[in-house]
C-alpha cells in the first residue's frame, strides 16, 4: 500500500515536471508570435530582443496561462472554439433583442433578479459563463460566489432560458468538463 502511494507520488511529480516544460513552451510560443505580429520588423535585433523577452516572460509567468496537462488543455481549447461560434450567434441575437425592446413604442420590459447554482468551479469556466450571460439576450451577471450566480434579466423569457432550459450552463460545463 505504502509502495503504491510512493509510486503514485513519483508519477504526479513526473507529470508536474513535464507539465511545467509544456507550459513554458506554450507560453513562449504564444508570446513570441504576439511579438512578431505586433512589431512587423524582422531584422536580427528586433527578433532577438523578442526571443529574449518572450523567454523571460515564459519562465516567470508560465503558470498563469497553462495550469494542466497538455492533452486535456488541447481538447478543452478545441471545445472552447466551437463554443465561441455558438456564442457569436447568441451575441447577434442579443443585439436584435435589445434593439427590438428599445425601439418598440411600449418597451416590453419587466426586469427581475434571479439566482441559480452551477457545478462550475474553476476561474476560467466561471469567467466564460459570466461573460456569456452578459453578452446573450436580456441577461447581465451581477455577482458570482462559489459557483452561485446572481443575474439581472430584462424580462421573464430570458430569465427562463437560464433557469429552466440551462442550455448555456450545459454547454460551458461540457467545454470545461466540470459537470
Amino acid at each position: 500500500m505504502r509502495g503504491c502511494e510512493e509510486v503514485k507520488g513519483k508519477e504526479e511529480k513526473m507529470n508536474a515536471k513535464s507539465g511545467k516544460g509544456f507550459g513554458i513552451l506554450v507560453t513562449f510560443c504564444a508570446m513570441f508570435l504576439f511579438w512578431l505580429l505586433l512589431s512587423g520588423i524582422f531584422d536580427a535585433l528586433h527578433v532577438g530582443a523578442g526571443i529574449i523577452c518572450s523567454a523571460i516572460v515564459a519562465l516567470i509567468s508560465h503558470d498563469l496561462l497553462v495550469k494542466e496537462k497538455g492533452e486535456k488543455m488541447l481538447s478543452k481549447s478545441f471545445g472552447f472554439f466551437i463554443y465561441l461560434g455558438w456564442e457569436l450567434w447568441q451575441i447577434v441575437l442579443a443585439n436584435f433583442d435589445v434593439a427590438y425592446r428599445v425601439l418598440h413604442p411600449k418597451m416590453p420590459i419587466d426586469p427581475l433578479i434571479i439566482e441559480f447554482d452551477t457545478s462550475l468551479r474553476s476561474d476560467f469556466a466561471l469567467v466564460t459563463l459570466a461573460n456569456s450571460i452578459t453578452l446573450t439576450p436580456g441577461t447581465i451577471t451581477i455577482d458570482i460566489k462559489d459557483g452561485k450566480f446572481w443575474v439581472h434579466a430584462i424580462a421573464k423569457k430570458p430569465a427562463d432560458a437560464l433557469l429552466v432550459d440551462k442550455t448555456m450552463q450545459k454547454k460551458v460545463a461540457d467545454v470545461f468538463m466540470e459537470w
Partner: protein
Amino acid sequence: MVIIDVIVILLLAAGIFFMFTGVIGLLRLPDFYTRLHATGKCDTLGEVLIIAGLLLYHLFVYSPGAELSVKLVPVKLIFLIIFIFLANPTATHAIMKAAYKTGLKPWKKGDARM
C-alpha cells in the same frame, strides 16, 4: 472592388445602427440596470462590426503591394476585436456589481422612471 465597398459600407452601417440603438436605449430605458443592458450589448457588436468593416477595407484596398508592417495592421484589428469581446462584458458586469452592492433598487414594472 465595388463589391468590397458595398460589404464595407453595410458593415459600417450595421455597426452604426447598433451603436445608435444603444444610445436610444440609454435615453429611453427606465433605470440604471436596464440602461446597462442597452449599452453593454449594443456597444460590443457595434464596435466589432465597425472594426470588421475597417479590417476588410484595409485587407483589400491598402494591403496589396504595401510593406509588411502595413500588411500586419489587420492582425492588430483582430486583437482589438478579441479585447472588446473580453473587456466589454467584464466592465458591464463590474459596473452592475458596484451598483448592486451600493444598494440601488432595481426598477419594477409599474414603477415611475428613475
